[in-house]
Structures are given as structure tokens and as C-alpha cells.
């Protein structure tokens, strides 16, 4: 990079990277479409051309010359294809070239993102593109490019024929600034600027438009004009000097001689304009490069700050409205105002949450490219089906999910889906199927990756785990689920069986870690020769829920209000024990299990008799049960924070804790996982 790069600010660079990355994604989509349909349309060609043109421009502004060069060569290729209207293209070769270009550019951008120099060498790829263009040219030698309106035109400059007696003759030599580019057009601009006041013009270089070397000639020798004008010398000199990017002007007033001088040549110039503007026609097609027209991009940090602030507002609102100092007062107006405040805060929360939520669709769509590449490399024929694209997920999660998903898809294709022959032999559809789904269950997002491949082999997994000293239980005691989870252990995959595609240092354990970092978990199901299903469950990172605070000894827990059915004090006659000694309670002819919170969390409580304390009946999808706690403290909206990443390596999540809530007084209350407790203790 040269000094000039320092004039480009961070925001400019970020915008460049953002736009280029977006363009690469669009380009990829177009190409996948072309491959999928096995045809290329005019729109496709135009869009690719346009994208290449735009990136050529911006990358050259940013002085990323390798990107500029490669996009230039692709632009030339697609320009030729468009102008010559060529449709019999070798689509495979063409798409490979474009995909390679996408990869090259994306890689360079990632270097820039990391603060490194984009030093990739584009020359091999550029020459491949040129070779392809040459081969197309060879195949289509006769077609003429349909020219724009004025190919073959002469100068469009009318020189005034009537020479006034007061006009004088002038000779001018003009040099333009170094590197102002298109010097011939600069000269033309100058002629237009002076149009009204000069006549009988002749100039060298003579031909500004068709002579390819006109610009060079002007750089060397300057733009030389001979003309007549009524204006005086000084005015003319000023006008000339005022020309855009004019470096120097030599102006000479010539004595009015009728005698022919070598430098005076009269020339008639024609003005011709073709009506058909063919190039402009083709460019007029409405593209939508910017698919999202009314969107602004916001810095993620600002969003995080906004979220935190909203959370704090919720907590502070509680501090005000539930302030002990006013608890016993009857304040009608205050209550009314509080309710209004609560209403507005709820709306604010909803909107802020929704801003951070992004559809998972684009992340899923990226997987198409992976599947395509792997199909090619592994000579397999696998289909990727995506569903649940509109499922919205917090931006944090989207960012973390990308890599793990890619790894899992690669795994499915590499280790899961069998070769076409094997599949046919097994009586399966010769096309393998990998499906990707996302569903929002209110509190969590569940992402499923399913393949119809050969499934996981229990014996082989156990063997491998044993070899790597990873077994902590005897194999007979392990359920299938536990055996399948072995692949998530660090050290499971040895370097020997890491193939090029599914795990260079990105083992399943790293996938697991990434998912746990956002508070999620991963589970694997599999059946031999049927396939493997991987379920990833991730809680929404920030939720604000209505919670009921209950106390157990010195601890305060929060129960999501939407799980509570009722609460009451137990009556002796309703308490019973079932055959295994578990405590139950009889309520209106139904019997419900009782879970003692102080027991499951090992807390000291004074209220150990079920008759003291309070019972809270909660419901899950499957059933209802009762929690036994000391007291109910009151309802409060709480900000839900996930269990910290560090704790995910322990069994905290399984113990019945769904997350943490920060209370109005800044204390932390653990949020109970009502279904988790049911699963574990009942």
C-alpha cells in the first residue's frame, strides 16, 4: 500500500469490504442458479458484468490492484459475451472461473479484515480467464460487436463558418495534468467549453475519438489548436487555463495573414449521431443490485449497547414501580403512569429485540456452495434442502453458527452420504439428501441437520474412543445417544482420519464449544444405513420475561410466569407418597409430583415441611408438577442472561437452571428450567 491508503479511513474500508462481500454473495447465488438451471440468461450476464464493473471501480479506488485486475478481466469476458450475444458457452468452465474469482476476492478481503495486506497473486487466474476469452473469440470470429451510437463518427464539433472581421487567429498548445486520464476527452471538453467563442478550428492530434493513440500523443506533444476568435488574448488565456486538469497553456496570437501557413488547415467537420444507442439500451435493464433498498447498516456494538440499555431500563422500571418505599401506598395516578411506562417499555423491548434478529436464511444459503463444491470433489450427487429460512435468530448466534454449520454439512457429505454405487446397492435414492431446518420454539431456536447417509456405527465409535482413552463408562452402560456424543469429545478425531474437507483443526469438539459459547447444546441421533440427525438448540440470547420470584432459603429463583398455573399451601390430607416413596399431592382429583427445590439445589432452608412453605404448580409440554419453595416474593420482569460459557463444561444446564436473571436490586436470580427439572427429577 502506498501513502495514499492512509487517506482512506476505516469507514471507507469497512464499506468497501461490506459491499464487496455482499457482491460476492450475490454473485455466488447467480452462479449457483446458472449451474442449477444449466442455462445463462441475459440478466445473468448483465448482473455479473455489473458486479465486476462496480468492484473494479471500488477496488481500484482503494488501490487493491490484484482485485481490480481480476475483476477487470472478468468484466472484459462478460462484456464480450454480452456484446457478441454469445450463448453457446461452456458453462462449467465459465462458472469455475467465476467461482475461483469469488474465492480469490473473498480470501483477499479476509486478509484485509485481519489487517493484513491482500497480496494474493491474481495472474494465474487472470490468464485463465483471458485464455477462455480468447477461445470464445476464436469460436466466434465473424460476429461484430454492436457498437454504440457513435462508432465511426468524426468529431462532433461545429466550427463557425462565418468569420467576423474582428477575429484574430491564435495558436495554442495545451498540456494536461499528469495522470488525469483520457487526455483526448479532456481536449474534447476544452473544445466544447470554447465552442461559442472560437471558429475555424483545427487541431492535432486530428482524430480525438478513433485514434487509439490520441491520448498518448497529447501527453507527449500537448493538444495543439489553431483557431480564430473575437476575444482578446488575456480572456482566451484565462479560459484555457481554467479548463479542467489543464497543466499548462501556450497561447500565441498570430498576425492575420491570408497566406497559407503550414499550421493552418481548414477542415470541415461533420456532426453525426446515430439514433440507436445500443450500449445504453443494454445498460438500461433494471437490475436490482441493491436488493434491500431501505436498509441501513448499523454497527453491531451500537446494537449491543442499545440492548444492554433496554435491559437496564427494565430493571430500573422495577426498581421504581416495585420500590419498597411505596409498596403499601395507594397511588392511583402513579399506578396509571407506571402501567403506561410498562407498556412503552414492552414496545421498546420488542422493537429492539427484533432489530437484532436476522433471518437465518442467508446463512443457510451459504451452504449451497459448500455442497456444490463437495459434490464435485467427492464425486457425489447430494441435494441440500433448506427449510425454516424465515426463522429469526439473534445476530450473535448467526455469527457463531456459520463455521459449525459448514463443518457439520461437510461432515455429512464426507462421512455420511455414501457413494452413488453404494446407495444404489442399498436401494436408496442415488441422490443423497442433506436437509437443514430451523425452528423457533419461543425460548430457543432448534437447528437440525439431517442426512440420509450410512449413519454412525456404534461399535466403531466405541472402538475409537477406547483407543484414544476417552471412555469414562463401560460401553454396555452407554446409551446410543451417549455413544454418538463421543464424537464431540476433544481428541476423538486423530490427524489420520481428518480429510481435507471435514476437519482441519475444526473438530466436532470445536463445533460443540462454539455452540456452547452461545449457551446452546448439540445432540446426535443416528440409525445405521438410515442416516444421522444433529440437533442444535440455542436459547435466544436476550429475552425479557415475566417471572415470579420465589425464595428458597437465602436464594431467590425465578419461575417463568407463563409456566405457572397456580400456587397454594399444602393441606396435610392431600399429601401422599407413591409406590417408590416419591412425594405427591392431590389436587381436585389429580395427583401431581412434588419437587423440593431446597433438595435439588442443596440449599439450607428452614421450611422443610411441605406444610410450611408454598407449592407452585407449573406446567410443561408433557405434564404438570409442583415446586416446593419457602415463599413467593412477587412478579417481576427480568432480563434473561444465558449461563456463562465457562460453566457450560459442567452440568449446570442439566440441573434445572435455564439462565440467570438480574433483579432490580442487582442481585442474580437463577431462572428455573421447568421442563428440565421435570425431565431430571420426575
Amino acid at each position: 500500500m502506498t501513502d495514499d491508503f492512509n487517506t482512506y479511513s476505516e469507514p471507507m474500508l469497512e464499506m468497501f469490504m461490506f459491499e464487496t462481500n455482499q457482491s460476492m454473495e450475490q454473485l455466488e447465488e447467480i452462479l449457483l442458479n446458472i449451474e442449477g438451471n444449466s442455462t445463462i440468461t441475459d440478466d445473468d450476464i448483465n448482473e455479473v458484468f455489473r458486479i465486476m464493473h462496480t468492484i473494479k471501480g471500488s477496488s481500484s479506488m482503494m488501490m487493491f490492484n490484484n482485485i481490480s485486475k481480476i475483476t477487470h478481466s472478468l468484466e472484459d469476458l462478460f462484456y464480450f459475451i454480452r456484446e457478441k450475444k454469445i450463448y453457446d458457452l461452456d458453462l462449467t468452465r465459465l462458472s469455475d472461473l467465476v467461482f475461483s474469482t469469488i474465492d480469490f476476492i473473498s480470501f483477499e478481503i479476509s486478509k484485509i479484515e485481519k489487517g493484513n495486506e491482500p497480496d494474493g497473486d491474481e495472474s494465474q487466474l487472470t490468464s485463465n480467464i483471458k485464455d477462455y476469452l480468447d477461445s470464445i473469440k476464436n469460436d466466434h470470429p465473424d460476429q461484430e460487436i454492436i457498437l454504440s451510437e457513435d462508432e465511426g463518427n468524426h468529431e462532433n464539433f461545429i466550427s463557425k463558418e462565418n468569420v467576423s472581421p474582428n477575429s484574430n487567429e491564435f495558436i495554442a498548445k495545451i498540456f494536461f495534468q499528469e495522470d488525469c486520464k483520457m487526455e483526448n476527452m479532456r481536449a474534447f471538453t476544452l473544445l466544447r467549453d470554447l465552442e461559442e467563442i472560437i471558429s475555424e478550428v483545427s487541431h492535432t492530434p486530428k482524430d480525438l475519438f478513433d485514434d487509439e493513440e490520441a491520448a498518448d500523443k497529447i501527453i507527449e506533444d500537448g493538444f495543439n489548436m489553431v483557431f480564430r476568435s473575437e476575444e482578446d488574448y488575456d480572456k482566451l488565456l484565462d479560459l484555457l487555463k481554467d479548463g479542467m486538469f489543464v497543466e499548462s497553456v501556450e497561447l500565441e496570437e498570430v498576425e492575420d495573414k491570408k497566406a497559407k501557413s503550414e499550421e493552418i488547415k481548414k477542415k470541415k467537420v461533420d456532426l453525426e449521431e446515430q439514433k440507436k444507442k445500443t450500449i445504453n439500451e443494454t445498460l438500461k435493464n433494471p437490475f436490482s443490485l441493491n436488493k434491500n433498498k431501505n436498509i441501513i447498516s448499523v454497527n453491531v456494538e451500537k446494537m449491543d449497547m442499545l440492548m444492554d440499555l433496554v435491559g437496564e431500563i427494565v430493571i430500573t422500571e422495577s426498581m421504581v414501580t416495585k420500590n419498597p418505599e411505596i409498596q403499601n401506598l395507594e397511588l392511583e395516578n402513579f399506578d396509571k403512569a407506571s402501567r403506561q411506562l410498562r407498556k412503552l417499555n414492552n414496545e421498546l423491548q420488542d422493537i429492539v429485540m427484533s432489530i437484532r434478529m436476522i433471518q437465518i436464511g442467508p446463512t443457510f444459503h451459504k451452504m449451497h456452495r459448500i455442497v456444490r463444491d463437495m459434490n464435485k470433489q467427492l464425486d457425489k450427487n447430494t441435494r441440500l434442502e433448506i427449510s425454516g429460512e424465515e426463522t429469526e435468530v439473534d445476530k450473535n448466534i448467526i455469527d457463531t453458527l456459520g463455521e459449525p454449520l459448514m463443518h457439520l454439512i461437510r461432515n455429512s457429505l464426507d462421512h455420511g452420504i455414501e457413494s452413488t454405487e453404494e446407495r444404489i446397492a442399498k436401494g436408496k435414492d442415488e441422490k443423497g439428501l442433506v436437509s437443514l431446518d430451523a425452528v423457533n420454539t419461543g425460548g430457543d431456536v432448534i437447528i437440525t441437520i439431517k442426512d440420509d447417509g450410512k449413519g454412525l456405527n456404534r461399535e466403531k465409535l466405541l472402538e475409537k474412543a477406547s483407543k484414544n482413552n476417552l471412555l469414562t463408562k463401560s460401553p454396555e452402560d452407554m446409551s446410543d445417544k451417549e455413544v454418538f456424543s463421543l464424537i464431540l469429545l476433544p481428541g476423538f478425531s486423530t490427524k489420520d482420519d481428518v480429510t481435507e474437507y471435514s476437519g482441519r483443526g475444526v473438530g466436532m469438539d470445536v463445533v460443540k464449544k462454539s455452540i456452547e459459547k452461545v449457551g446452546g447444546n448439540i445432540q446426535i441421533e443416528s440409525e445405521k444405513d438410515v442416516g444421522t440427525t444433529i440437533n442444535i438448540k440455542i436459547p435466544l440470547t436476550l429475552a425479557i420475561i415475566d417471572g415470579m420470584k420465589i425464595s428458597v432459603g437465602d436464594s431467590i429463583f425465578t419461575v417463568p410466569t407463563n409456566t405457572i398455573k397456580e400456587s397454594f399451601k399444602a393441606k396435610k390430607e392431600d399429601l401422599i407418597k407413591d409406590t417408590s416413596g416419591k412425594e405427591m399431592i392431590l389436587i381436585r382429583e389429580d395427583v401431581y409430583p412434588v419437587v423440593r427445590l431446597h433438595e435439588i439445589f442443596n440449599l439450607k432452608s428452614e421450611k422443610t415441611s411441605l406444610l410450611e412453605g408454598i407449592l407452585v404448580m407449573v406446567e410443561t409440554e408433557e405434564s404438570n408438577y409442583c415446586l416446593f419453595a419457602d415463599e413467593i416474593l412477587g412478579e417481576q420482569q427480568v432480563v434473561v442472561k444465558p449461563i456463562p460459557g465457562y460453566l457450560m463444561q459442567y452440568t449446570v444446564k442439566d440441573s434445572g437452571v435455564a439462565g440467570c436473571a438480574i433483579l432490580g436490586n442487582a442481585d442474580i436470580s437463577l431462572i428455573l428450567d421447568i421442563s428440565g427439572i421435570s425431565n431430571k427429577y420426575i
Partner: protein
Amino acid sequence: MKKVLIVDDAAFMRHTIKAMLSKNGFEIIGEAENGALGVERYKELSPDIVTMDITMPEKDGIEALKDIKKIDPNASVLMVSAMGQEKLVKNSIIAGAKGFIVKPFKEDKLVEALNKL
């Protein structure tokens, strides 16, 4: 301060031009991402200068230039072009563009060009 309207379909270019000009005493009063919107905004904002990308969707720079010239024959429009677009530059000049600049360009060149308009 001269008021500038930037018309370009690439957000990056709009951003870059805006950054360059704001630093040099120009006021960016509007942006448009295609020629049609460019003409609309010209009508709304009456800028002193317009920077106009030559190739854009939904009405290219030259057509937009012509429309603007119809509204105000004295409009100062600077065309922004890329190498290899000589014919388009020529047509722009014929259509009344007061000047042009070629990508990639440095800040000082852009500023100098606008100062001449």
C-alpha cells in the same frame, strides 16, 4: 459552501466521494443510487453541483444528465467514469456535462475538478 448531490449506484463510491468532498469544504446535500432518483433529488434539492456516475441502472448517467439539463441548462454536472468508457464520456460532454473524472481517482483530483465547476 457549494452544495453537492452525489449520484452513483455503488454505495462505496457514494461514501468515498462524500468523505472526500466533506473534508474539502463541500456540503453533500443528497445522494441517489440511480439516474431516475438522481433527477428526482435534483428537483427537490437544487444542488450547485452534481457528481454523476456514467453507468447506472434505472436511467444511466447520460440520460439523467439530459433530464437535469432540461430542468436547468446551467446545471454543473461532473461525470464519473471508468477507463474504457470514452464514448460515454464523449456523449456526456455533448449532452452538457461540464467535466469528467476517471476512476480510480485521488481526493485532490476530485476536489480540483469540482472547484472548476
